């Protein structure tokens, strides 16, 4: 017996997607974050992306760690199960959930404190394993929820609201994800929804470990002079490398991205420069080039945004483990229990 989604009655002016849902159907609880928090814009982008992809909300499993960012799964996809786990350990819980049922869409939401400080080990290993997921780090360079301490992504020399100067060198999660073998890597900016929505859509469609670092200024603790993550600063330093129109078919993500295609590049001033694919020594299927690009721009004080790398042929953890197609959580005694005859044989062999 299958249960088809039954969209609620809607205001006739609200646009429906192919499965009859309006954007409302992808919303969650009212956010309790600070007004203007970058994280809320990311939630809005997730809602938009899921709506555009005609995803049934209940087929998504939302998992997060602890932090302001990790609270957000409650604020989108209200019909999806969510799990606010423990600080820094979302990746392991998501991995286990994914093993249990490979048919759902796994969306992990985390913060820079959650993923780059306390949880860096789990971030590293979940990516290495190729868990089929969309892993979004809402990166504000601070611990929002515990009131403004530096996280490991805070830039060296950046000054906290309390006047403390950060002397430690920063972690770049995009570089790490590339090195760790993530098969879809991008960076976005919470204030640039036009770029962010396709990035998220591509990640959701990708079969493998998709990682997105989304710069998300904290209005409470990281939007003052001296901070390197405030809106103004990021806008200025944003260098968007490309903008993809993601195709819904799983393996097709970059299929249309042939030489001759046009790529938009956002300029320091926020304007868009249209780049031709052939023009750039840049290929989103070239991991080494992506790493180089990120490093070169970083040396110039710029953050590269856009889809940096994708491997359309990626295999995921289930592929590595050779698990059955049928979700493990639906297997019963019949498939799982070897039975009494086998046990009698085992007993005999142990005598």
């Amino acid at each position, binding site marked *: 017996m299958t*249960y088809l989604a039954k969209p609620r009655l809607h205001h006739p002016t609200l646009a429906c997607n192919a499965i009859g849902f309006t954007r409302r159907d992808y919303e969650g609880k009212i956010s309790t974050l600070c007004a203007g928090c970058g994280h809320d814009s990311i939630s809005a982008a997730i809602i938009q992306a899921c709506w555009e992809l005609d995803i049934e909300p209940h087929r998504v499993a939302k998992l997060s760690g602890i932090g302001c960012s990790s609270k957000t799964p409650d604020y989108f996809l209200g019909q999806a199960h*969510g799990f*606010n786990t423990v600080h820094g350990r979302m990746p392991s819980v998501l991995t*286990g959930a994914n093993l249990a049922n490979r*048919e759902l869409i796994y969306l992990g939401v985390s913060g820079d404190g959650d993923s780059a400080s306390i949880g860096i080990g789990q971030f590293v290993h979940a990516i290495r394993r190729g868990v089929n997921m969309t892993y979004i780090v809402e990166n504000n360079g601070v611990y929002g929820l515990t009131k403004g301490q530096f996280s490991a992504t805070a830039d060296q020399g950046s000054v906290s609201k309390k006047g403390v100067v950060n002397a430690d060198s920063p972690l770049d999660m995009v570089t790490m994800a590339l090195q760790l073998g993530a098969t879809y890597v991008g960076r976005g900016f919470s204030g640039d929804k036009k770029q962010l929505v396709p990035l998220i859509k591509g990640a959701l469609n990708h079969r493998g470990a998709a990682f997105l670092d989304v710069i998300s200024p904290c209005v409470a603790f990281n939007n003052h002079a001296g901070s390197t993550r405030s809106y103004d600063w990021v806008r200025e330093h944003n260098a968007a490398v490309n903008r993809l129109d993601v195709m819904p078919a799983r393996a097709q993500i970059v299929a249309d991205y042939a030489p001759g295609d046009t790529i938009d590049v956002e300029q320091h001033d926020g304007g868009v420069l249209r780049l031709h694919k052939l023009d750039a020594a840049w290929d989103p299927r070239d991991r080494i080039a992506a790493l180089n690009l990120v490093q070169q721009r970083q040396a110039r004080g710029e953050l590269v945004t856009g889809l940096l790398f994708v491997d359309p042929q990626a295999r995921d953890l289930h592929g590595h483990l*050779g*698990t059955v197609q049928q979700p*493990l959580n639906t297997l019963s005694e019949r498939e*799982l229990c070897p039975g009494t005859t086998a046990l009698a044989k*085992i007993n005999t062999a142990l005598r």
Partner: protein
Amino acid sequence: MTPAVSPLRAVNDFVVKFANVNGSGSASANELFAKAILRMGVPVSPRNIFPSNIQGLPTWYEVRVTERGWLGRRGGVDLMVAMNPQTWDADIAEIEPGGYLFHDGSKPLPKSKFRDDITVIAVPLTELCNAAWEDPRQRQLFKNIMYVGALSALLDMDVATLEALVAEQYRGKEKLLPPNLKALHLGRDWALQNLACPIGLTVRRADAVGDRIFVEGNAAAALGCVYGGATVCAWYPITPSSSLAEAFQKYCQKYRVDEAGNARFAILQAEDEIASIGMVVGAGWNGARAFTATSGPGISLMNEFIGLAYFAEIPATIINVQRGGPSTGMPTRTQQSDVLACAYASHGDTRHVLLFPEDPHECFAFSAAALDLADRLQTPVFVMTDLDIGMNQRLCAPFEWGESRRYDRGKVMTAGDLESGREFARYKDVDGDGIPWRTWPGTHPDKGAYFTRGTSRNPQAQYSERGPDYVYNMERLLKKFDNAKSLVPQPVIVQSGPPARHGVIFYGSTSPAMAEAIELLAGQGIALDTLRVRAYPFPDTVRDFIEAHARVFVVEQNRDGQLRTLLVNEFDMDPARLVAVLHYDGTPITARFIAGAIADALAQSAAAAKTAQMENVA
């Protein structure tokens, strides 16, 4: 040499200890020796005593031959097979007066290296091996099987049984069979021709094994997880639990691969124990049966997640193969010292279900039961085994499984249930047993979704910091825990005859030593009723047992009397009623120790009572 003390004489009742160098290939030969005696119908109880090392350090294998079936460690050594020069002195010192020493006599040793109250048996193993083989590796390897051959003559063992076992061992690798049989006979023939065979210790065919099986607890627990329907296993290597996950892998490869070659299981070696329990929690949340196997340090790391699983009510099975703590403690020695760490694991008010298997048979049964209980109670369930059970082959009742047995998946609402209009409130006690209903992710398009969190919430799973909501939830969790008392394996009570004045409570791997101790004490006129605790929360029968006896000894393998503390705390009981009998040097507890400690305690209190009486008179 003629010993100064008359040589020990015993049939089917003695202890042989093999002193070897780790990594020298002795393990399989020693196991062959033990299994041959078993096949002769005489129970044996072998124990590995090994260092935290892969190659080079000393390792021992102790075999108790016991027609009476006393499977606990006896203590003392009647025949020492001294194959390790490094530990020679200590090994010689351990032999009982009148005992025997077997060694490689290829190189003469000074008289000072021996004792005059033991019988020395020298077999030129190296010489014989060097004459028979060229390859140094073979010379080393065949020495092991050669001493088994020599022992078979000395102990009057059935050679056909040994030959059959060797043939079983090399089934499929027939090329290796002839040289092994050759080595076996070289040793045996040399002993028959050059030594007075048999010695005072002999094995005589008997019928005392029955249909029992011989297996390690870790393999048994792994098989229990296969039968119990675990599909996800996440683990991080740690002695003495690693072989459990490895056995699960082996059994799954055999029984859980479909016709197309796809796996009906997922095993992940995680990056640490935090990740392994996280994966188990994630899988449990998503409706798969999941478990992890670990030991003390792993439990310490898992604490935060255990609290989350308790509070968010997620099934998780944790098999704790206990070893000596704290810290790295004695990683290759046995203890029961994680009882409190598991019963109250994590911050805040928590209580967890613990199961205490006594042997591999129960490791199998309780692992499968734990998966059911975790689903039924929606909470972490611990299987508290230890190194003594886990890493040693133990004779036990065969595994059992009912053909019609079905998994208890607990209270899970299906799409059909939700569609039929049944109310869903994730954390509401609708049935009066404290256990709420849950849904799995992806069940229904617009019903039954909820947000799981470790923060407080109301019965509808909505975030709430209201005191009454928090208290409702915490009280419900307590009610659920209370309910578990009737679901867990019940205690085993053995009455000595007419109600005894004193009782004993014990659990887990103490079992075989306890049975023997009770007989030793009965021989001294001390009658004791016993209760074997098989689970926490303690059913009321445990309290009744304590209250029915003037004093109850609580026998444990830890320093602090952890189960006793738990009993005192849970029953709010006068600690004076419970007398701790504690053994915690890392070796398995013995009947001699238990009987001695209890007899001493009773003698002391009798003396004290007498003094008090006299004082009253004066």
